[in-house]
């Protein structure tokens, strides 16, 4: 069949293109230009494309498949980067990869795939699609260390039906690299990409500050009782549940403290005991990949943590989650529900106030 492969220039999506082409499918490679690489890297005169687009084209050349570069800069700026900055400015900790999957990849790129007469769109994500008589299900990857199901919770049932994830059954990343090497792909030994693609060298606060200077306005660090225990240089630099950048406030009064809340309106970072936390978490923008009904299941409130037992109740505009043990849930992060390996759905964590 005709398949569009979203090629980032990395080893994963390159291997997907190679495997599908080898299996006899008609493969069309597409790489999204999401931002001006030259501008993001701060190097004057640097090409807007960067090494990854070059690598994707070389892989496509090697495989003998057509390859196109799509200009998604404006859409990425509006739907992903602006949302990223606005979320931080509101005292949240956003997940831009989820927004990108929701908009640029599984909406826009999938639309292009349909326009080009493709029957499926394939990506290099580590998740499994399991077909059942009731339709496609989304499952965790076979390799728990690589599983990306948390980042794909917002994939709609229709988008899932249209998608292929050939790497979900790979035992581990080394196996993918071996496949890439076997296929002779020039990226077989390329290092994994790190962190957020549009944030150079991890200085996300700079990106946020450019778009939302208010997010970097200094303010007070206070206890839950309102006692001022320090100063900060912008709520956007803090994440609920973490102690980073608290300085002396992290130990004020002798006890260890972490961020328990971010009050963007009053520019306050609220600190408290790491054992504090909520038993009830409300979610917005729920996406269900199973029938929406009250369920006892497991959930992950962060990308990298073990699932914990929860009860979830659908509400008119989201869901309410009851946790078995209190947790410091960071607003803006995703809460994703699982039944064993299957993703049932998920939503974004709301601030408690």
């Amino acid at each position: 069949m005709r398949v569009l492969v979203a090629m980032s220039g990395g080893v994963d999506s390159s291997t997907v293109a190679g495997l599908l082409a080898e299996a006899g499918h008609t493969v069309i490679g597409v790489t999204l230009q999401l931002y001006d690489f030259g501008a993001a890297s701060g190097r004057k005169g640097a090409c807007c494309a960067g090494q990854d687009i070059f690598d994707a084209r070389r892989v496509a050349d090697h495989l003998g498949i057509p390859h196109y570069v799509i200009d998604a800069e404006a859409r990425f700026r509006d739907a992903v980067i602006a949302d990223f900055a606005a979320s931080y400015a509101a005292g949240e900790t956003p997940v831009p990869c989820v927004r990108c999957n929701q908009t640029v990849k599984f909406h826009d790129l999938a639309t292009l795939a349909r326009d080009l007469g493709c029957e499926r769109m394939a990506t290099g994500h580590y998740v499994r699609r399991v077909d059942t008589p009731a339709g496609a299900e989304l499952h965790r990857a076979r390799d728990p260390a690589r599983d990306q199901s948390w980042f794909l919770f917002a994939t709609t049932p229709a988008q899932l039906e249209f998608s292929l994830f050939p790497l979900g059954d790979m035992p581990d990343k080394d196996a993918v690299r071996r496949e890439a090497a076997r296929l002779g792909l020039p990226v077989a030994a390329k290092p994994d990409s790190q962190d957020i693609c549009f944030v150079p060298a991890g200085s996300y606060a700079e990106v946020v500050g450019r778009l939302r200077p208010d997010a970097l306005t200094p303010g007070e660090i206070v206890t839950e009782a309102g006692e001022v225990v320090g100063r900060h240089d912008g709520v956007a630099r803090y994440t609920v549940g973490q102690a980073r950048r608290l300085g002396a406030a992290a130990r004020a009064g002798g006890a260890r403290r972490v961020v328990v809340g971010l009050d963007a309106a009053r520019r306050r970072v609220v600190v408290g005991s790491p054992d504090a936390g909520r038993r009830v978490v409300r979610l917005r923008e729920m996406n269900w990949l199973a029938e929406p009904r009250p369920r006892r299941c497991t959930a992950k409130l962060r990308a990298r943590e073990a699932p914990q037992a929860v009860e979830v109740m659908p509400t008119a505009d989201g869901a309410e989650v009851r946790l078995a043990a209190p947790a410091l849930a960071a607003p803006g992060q995703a809460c994703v529900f699982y039944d064993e390996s299957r993703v049932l759905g998920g939503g974004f964590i709301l601030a408690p106030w």
Partner: protein
Amino acid sequence: MIYLDANATEPLRPAAQAAVLAALAGVGNPSSVHAAGRAARRRLEDAREAIATRFGAPPGAVVFTSGGTEADALAVHALGRGRRLIVGATEHDAIRAAAPGAAILRVGRDGVADLGALRDLLEGPPALVCLMAANNETGVLQPVAEAAALCRARGARLHVDAVQAAGRIALDFAGLGADSLALSSHKLGGPAGAGALLLAPAAPDLTPLIAGGGQERGRRGGTPPLPAIAGFAAAAAEAGGADRLAPLRDAIERAAVAAGAVVIGAAAPRLPNTTCLALPGVRAETQVIALDLAGIAVSAGAACSSGKVARSHVLDAMGLGPLAGEAIRVSLPWSATEADVAAFAAAYRQVAERLARVPA
């Protein structure tokens, strides 16, 4: 594959290929004193005379360059020194990048430069005006002779980028009255790697961009690429106008319009081989990809080195709004046939039917 992207590069003409091969078989540097050097110099000067004759210039007016971009850059560098720069809004990046900060000469919705605006812009200190003979994306012809007269009357110089016009429409440098004119070999069916800047006799002594060993009378250093230049001259001699392509282009437009397209710049005089077709509501890059997958090579916007389809500053300058991002360029090569037109028409109809949506 049906190749309809001649404005990116023309297929090599047989006469050019023969000339390239003949020159490749020879040895010698035109700067050398021995017999081989003399033979090479003769090849070089024969080519120079052929180019000069073909475009109505004395042989001494021809400075060989690596191509159109270098010819444009050399013109701005040499003729723009100490002058205000005025460039047409739809000029190629070869000019725009060479003249940063230049005043922009606006175009109308038809893509034609506004000569009244030029008259106003020329008030003031002496200027260099850059105006292309024909636009690469729309084929729209600019009133370069009228612009030359205006410039002359105001003490301004005029550089004409004739890269797309040369070989396709009549072009007489002396009659035009411009101070310089840029040509490119591969846009008229020669090999890539050669081009020329024609300089009017009144042009000032030219300070080179690359001085090197003083070749081209000190106007452009570096050993000239004889095979490319020989092919350039042969192609120029053979490229006798593209009038034959006008009916084919018209047939393409009729088929496209029947499928829902809008012809951009249709109200202006245009190159006979070029048409710019907008399909409302459908992104240009989607059209280009869909046609490529159907075996038809066309283009859109300015091809960036990344391969992405960048938004067209040409169509934006024409005030086309969203249509600027929804137009493709079909440019017929000298070798185009009626079968090519039929293949395009069939593929375009299919693509338009599949992609056409109600514009948002």
